[in-house]
């Protein structure tokens, strides 16, 4: 089998902004995932609703960010998008075709993961070059010399020096290992990369290198991405659109810039205020989230955010909000549009 884009040419001839041709390459429709937790001896088991009726799409050449606090279901969505886990309900389509009907090998070639901790996913006995060649061998792409050429080109493209090509993972820094993981993910010329917190384990200085690399790859290759983080400041640098998750649901989604300028959901506002910029004139933000913490085994009635919401009214306790369109964003909040000025709209 030969791959069309074997020479690392962009998937599209024009720069990234024009290549978002508004057809979804990857789409999730109404996916849900519930885990059953055994209660131990004599106790009844309980249900943990990790993902609740989530719909998302990623257009060609576009990056969709997913943001939300720990445990809100981001990684579960990622595993489902990668076909590593089956949803209890809902459907995933890749370029219009249900992924359930796509052969395993083909799916893993077209949708590639990049995880938080590259060390645990890199084989310690394989050199960097072998690591990137490996998927080409497995999928029998091209011949040996062309595989070698492609791997070297990718390693070069992700900014690894030639002298490190024969090094082993334990001889590299965290940032360098993440570059290797990205090169490996790109080796088979995937339709889409699913990156789950790829910079959370790195220093800020190294995080900046990786975020810049991802921007460059987006521009040069036009590859589509899902990018997961709990930090909106990071998401802003890579995502065209962003979906904000809370307790298993997408509570707000829209174009990244607009959403950061005009966050409509109270939770999105809290997330944005939680990004601690290094401004010594500002103290710790007062988030107004109360002292209760979300529990996916015990989802509140009505709007699931209401116990922590400073704006809640009786409607919020009684009925779950439907998504509403406001300023081009889709928001699940009864009060959206009526929260008043955001304290922290990012300044121009």
């Amino acid at each position, binding site marked *: 089998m030969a791959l069309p884009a074997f020479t690392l040419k962009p998937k599209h001839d024009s720069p990234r902004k024009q290549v978002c041709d508004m057809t979804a390459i990857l789409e999730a429709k109404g996916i849900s995932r519930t885990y059953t937790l055994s209660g131990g001896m004599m106790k009844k088991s309980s249900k943990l609703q990790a993902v609740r009726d989530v719909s998302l799409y990623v257009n060609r050449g576009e990056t969709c960010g997913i943001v939300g*606090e*720990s*445990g809100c279901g981001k990684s579960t969505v990622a595993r489902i998008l990668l076909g590593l886990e089956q949803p209890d309900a809902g459907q995933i389509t890749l370029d219009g075709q249900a992924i359930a009907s796509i052969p395993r090998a083909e799916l893993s070639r077209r949708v590639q993961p990049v995880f938080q901790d590259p060390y645990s996913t890199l084989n310690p006995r394989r050199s960097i070059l072998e690591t990137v060649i490996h998927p080409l061998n497995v999928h029998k792409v091209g011949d040996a010399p062309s595989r070698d050429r492609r791997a070297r080109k990718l390693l070069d493209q992700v900014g690894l020096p030639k002298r490190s090509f024969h090094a082993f993972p334990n001889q590299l*820094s*965290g*940032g360098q290992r993440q570059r290797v993981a990205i090169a490996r993910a790109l080796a088979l010329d995937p339709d889409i990369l699913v990156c789950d917190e790829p910079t959370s384990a790195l*220093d*800020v*200085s*190294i*995080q*900046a*290198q990786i*975020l*810049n690399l991802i*921007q460059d790859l987006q521009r040069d290759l036009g590859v589509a991405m899902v990018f997961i983080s*709990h*930090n*909106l*400041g*990071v998401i*802003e*640098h890579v995502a065209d659109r962003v979906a904000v998750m809370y307790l298993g649901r997408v509570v707000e989604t829209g174009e*990244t*810039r607009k959403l*950061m*300028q005009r966050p409509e959901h109270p939770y999105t506002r*809290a*997330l*944005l*205020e*939680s*990004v*601690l*910029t*290094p*401004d*010594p*004139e*500002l*103290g*710790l*933000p007062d*988030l107004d*989230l109360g*002292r*209760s*913490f979300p*529990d996916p085994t015990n989802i509140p009635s009505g709007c699931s955010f209401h116990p922590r919401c400073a704006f809640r009214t009786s409607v919020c306790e009684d009925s779950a909000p439907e998504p509403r369109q406001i300023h081009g964003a889709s928001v699940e909040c009864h009060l959206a549009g009526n929260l008043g000025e955001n304290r922290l709209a*990012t*300044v*121009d």
Partner: protein
Amino acid sequence: MTKLLDIKNLRVEIPIQGGAVHAVRGVDLSIDRGETLCIVGESGSGKSMSSLAVMNLLPKGAHRSADRMSFLGTDLLRLSHRGMARIRGDRIGMIFQEPMTSLNPAYTIGNQLQEVYRRHRRAGRAAARDRAIELLELVGIPNAPLRLRQYPHQLSGGLRQRVMIAMSLMCEPDILIADEPTSALDVTVQVQILHLLKDLQTKLGIAVILITHDLGVVARTADRVAVVYAGQILETGTARQVFGTPRHPYTARLLDSMPIPGMMRLRRKLQAIPGTVPSLTNDFQGCAFAARCDRARPECRTTEVPLVREDGHGFACLHPETEARFAQKAGV
């Protein structure tokens, strides 16, 4: 007035095959009651080794030395192992970077929390249990009595980190050394935990040494800051001095690499620092940061660079920056 903790010229060497890692190279630190001192720097800069040296918990074979290391007038360098064990966990609390290395997987959370209290306070079982529940609730863990029966592996990373914070506070220490206490937490919980530490500090007068690589956390919580690189302090002062007008290019470059919401609309790319932290097995000539510094001149690589002070703002640089960063609110 005597400082709560006063350290001069701290050094740590860790022997390895064919040499030694000079992890800490002449660091001065001091802290007063109720103060927050933040130590910030990239991975491998010697932050954890500095704090472990104070607690006398360095890895086997590692050697510490200092011209002075006193805690409330007690010389920690000459203190016996038993004397140190009495202070540790009682007068000086520590939150370790790796919760799993300090939580014992074989015992329940409750056992471990209560043990600290009973050992130092000679308290009874019931009193220790009440104290444990009180602290778990304080750090935002609902349903505390149930959590007491759980083992460390049954908790998420964020919950484990909060248990560690609770454990470090069981005996109301004079100083809390917190090594990356919020790095496993997401942004909203991080803010909540930092508020909690601040509250405890004002209420109980605890001094906090907070170790982190997150400049945002430092800017928002520190009274004083020490920026460390390759085992040395390159810049120190109040948070306003160090982040408002960073003088050392290393501090300035770290600030440039932070993603800040709204920045993309200003069409500013993140400025990554090229290169990596130098090997700590060698001695360097001149400034440790020179190899990665865009302002470096030949003399930076050859001359010893002392830490000079202007109004308490110290920096070790021959060609310091002068640009002010954030709008200083005073007068606006």
